[in-house]
């Protein structure tokens, strides 16, 4: 086992050296045309219950308060913008945040699922990140799994009276990591390894993407925390408007 670990570390370090000179590292969108049709459909169907719940929730909010539509639109655009801007990162290569974890902390995971789908469609069409056939799989990993984990951890930390900023950091970073794990599992389900099946293939995908995704998760956590600090000190009233409450 230790030998295997050593090999894994060697492989990872080779890749990270390689990535030091690589131009761009995107968040893990599965590219257009990469998944077989059956998987595209299956992941899409799996997303449906979440999307319907999100849709109902948004419609209820809007029936109560019409004004919320511009706020929702604004939050969707904010998720898009935060994920399309280059962030300062360690290696000097440029990378992007997912932004959905941040959205989940501010707006709650249900509305983020709907906003997430819309953002993913725009990312596919306008930025060529992800694709239309892989929309279902990407939605599941980025707009559903990630935000729900982020929100869960965030609330759990608050319940356990962990420092507020620490809980934001943990939520965002672990949510990002979870997105990356889910994507790896999705890929390995579609392309199981010839030697070792799905488990081996999951390990392969995880280790191949680790050098870009693990630093990215940490950076995402740090930046989300920093943004939340800024917002809480300057934008109390706006935050109350969107229903974000800091539970002390």
């Amino acid at each position, binding site marked *: 086992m230790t030998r295997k670990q050593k090999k894994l570390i060697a492989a990872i370090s080779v890749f990270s050296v390689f990535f030091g000179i690589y131009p761009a590292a995107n968040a893990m969108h599965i590219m257009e045309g990469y998944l077989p049709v059956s998987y595209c459909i299956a992941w899409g169907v799996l997303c449906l219950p979440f999307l319907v719940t999100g849709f109902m929730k948004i419609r209820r909010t*809007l029936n109560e308060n019409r004004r919320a539509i511009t706020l929702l*639109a604004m939050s969707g655009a904010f998720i898009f913008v935060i994920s399309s801007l280059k962030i300062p990162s360690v290696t000097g290569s440029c990378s992007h945040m997912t932004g959905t974890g941040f959205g989940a902390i501010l707006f709650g995971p249900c509305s983020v699922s709907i906003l997430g789908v819309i953002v993913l469609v725009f990312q596919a069409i306008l930025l*060529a990140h992800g*694709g239309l*056939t892989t929309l279902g799989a990407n939605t599941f990993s980025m707009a559903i799994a990630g935000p729900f984990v982020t929100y869960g951890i965030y609330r759990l930390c608050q319940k356990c009276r962990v420092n507020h900023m620490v809980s934001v950091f943990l939520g965002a970073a672990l949510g990002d990591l979870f997105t990356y794990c889910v994507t790896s599992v999705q890929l390995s389900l579609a392309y199981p390894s010839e030697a070792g099946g799905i488990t081996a*293939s999951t390990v*392969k995908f995880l280790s191949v993407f680790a050098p870009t995704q693990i630093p990215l998760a940490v950076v995402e956590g740090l930046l989300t925390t920093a*943004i939340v600090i800024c917002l809480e000190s300057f*934008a109390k009233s706006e935050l109350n408007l969107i229903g974000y409450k800091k539970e002390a």
Partner: protein
Amino acid sequence: MIIIDKLCYTSGLRYVNTMEKFVFSMLTLLICIISKSITVSVVVLLVTGFLTVGKGGVSLSRYLKFMTIPLVFLFLSTTAILVNISHAPLDAFAIPLGSYYLTGSFYGLLKGARLIFTALAGVSCLYFLSFSTPITDILEVLKRLHVPGLIIELMLLIYRHIFIMLHTASAITNAQHSRLGNKNIRIAKKSFAAMMSAVFILSVKRGGALYNAMEARCYNGRIRVLSEERPAKYSEILFIAGFELFLVYCSRR
């Protein structure tokens, strides 16, 4: 700011019937990923490339540059599919590493090659759509596909907000850069966070103002936009039908 959005408005295919473009790219995409055949993918790559570059007027160098965007993902995940770590060597290649082998099979290599071609052809289909059709037109198509009005409304507003925000963000980033806001990593992170939160606050304010403006113009939950009627031409429909049939024929062989 978003190059694709700029290019699609000046595309030579901008005024072709939107439904035609949508159906063409989606059908081609589906045939590509269902057939997974290299011939089909090469044909699709050539045809959509010709349509986007030749008819659409996107410069070739720019098109090729866009084709490299997904390459990192393609390279990494295909490596992960091709290379296995196991005790027993497979038939194509095997690099011994202690008691294990980094190994792959001919079947795996073939599968990988197919996957690369299919994925690239898929991307070229997506590019055909996004380089020729503005988002507002795509929203028209979605409306005809009976996507709920609320979602379309949200999409339209989000699309509008994206550009306002990107504009604000780039102005703030410029201001920060001119004041050495990206001197080192620590400061760069701090400025990024400050910039994003400023963008957030400004957009919440703008969102409120936008709603007031819309309500002053009798907004009742629907934004009605005039859409130009651009009838489909028979020659184009024939071309699309012929091309798809040809692809199905290719994939059968």
